[in-house]
């Protein structure tokens, strides 16, 4: 197991590459989901205010 993570002495380079790639992709997914929810909430509030004022 530790031999696998050592990657023949190149473990650092490999895991920094794969780790940062995974981190970026996961962060992007979370950011996009959150961004859409924020917009939905804001626009829903707007729709509510408009329908009340009618």
């Amino acid at each position, binding site marked *: 197991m530790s031999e696998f993570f050592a*990657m023949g002495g190149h473990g650092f380079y490999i895991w920094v590459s794969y780790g940062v790639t995974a981190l970026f992709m996961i962060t992007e997914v979370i950011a996009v989901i959150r961004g859409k929810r924020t*917009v939905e909430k804001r626009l829903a509030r707007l729709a509510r205010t408009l329908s009340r004022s009618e």
Partner: protein
Amino acid sequence: MALKDSIAWYHFAAPKNFYPLAGKMIPWFWGLTIVLLLVGLYLSFFVAPTDYKQGESYRIIFIHVPAAWMSMLIYLVMATYAIIGLAWKVRLADMMASALAPTGAMFTFLALWTGAFWGKPTWGTYWVWDARLTSELILLFLYIGFISLQSAIDDPRRAAKASSLLAIVGVINLPIIYFSVQWWNTLHQGASVSPTMAPKMATIMLTAMLIMTVAFWMYTIAIVLMRVRRIILERERQTTWVMELLGDETVGEKDGRK
């Protein structure tokens, strides 16, 4: 047939109709992404043998090459949407271009990042100013320029026009990146895979790389469809269909049906 196709094309070019279609497509692309990533990573780490020259560090190419390909492919698609948006005033095309840019920038950065961490054990340096690396860095600046230009201009139509022009002019950089290893004497090696030559790598390595590429591709489609749905809502917020869509959700929340 041709007429029917063109009607479908016009139908889904309307943000109102594209929004629910994108929503239906997203889970499928996520499913494909996960399956392909699992298979690709398994092949990359457990099936592909150690490279006789580079040792284990070559395994970085299983994400480096796909990320670099995606960085160029996304730019090409983005510029195509920019042309469609400029020439035919298709609003959805402008929205797609905006939705593609952040993911394109991310893959460009990752191509540079993984390249640096492959270069260190292989070349002995994280970075050199050779033509391939420099032109890829320029690609990152083009994406960043596109994104900042859009956020700097308030009027969405003018923002789309300015950023589309930048995207189209920037296309000139793509052949420079692609052919840089042939045109100049670069430290970066020549193409490992090219349409005209037999691949210089083992079949299993090539298979793993191609599966990872398709996985990144599916990821891009899924995330871009999600992002374009947000952009559609924002830019169409004054339309009745968005008001009704979100108004309904508000009613649902009140009734506790959510």
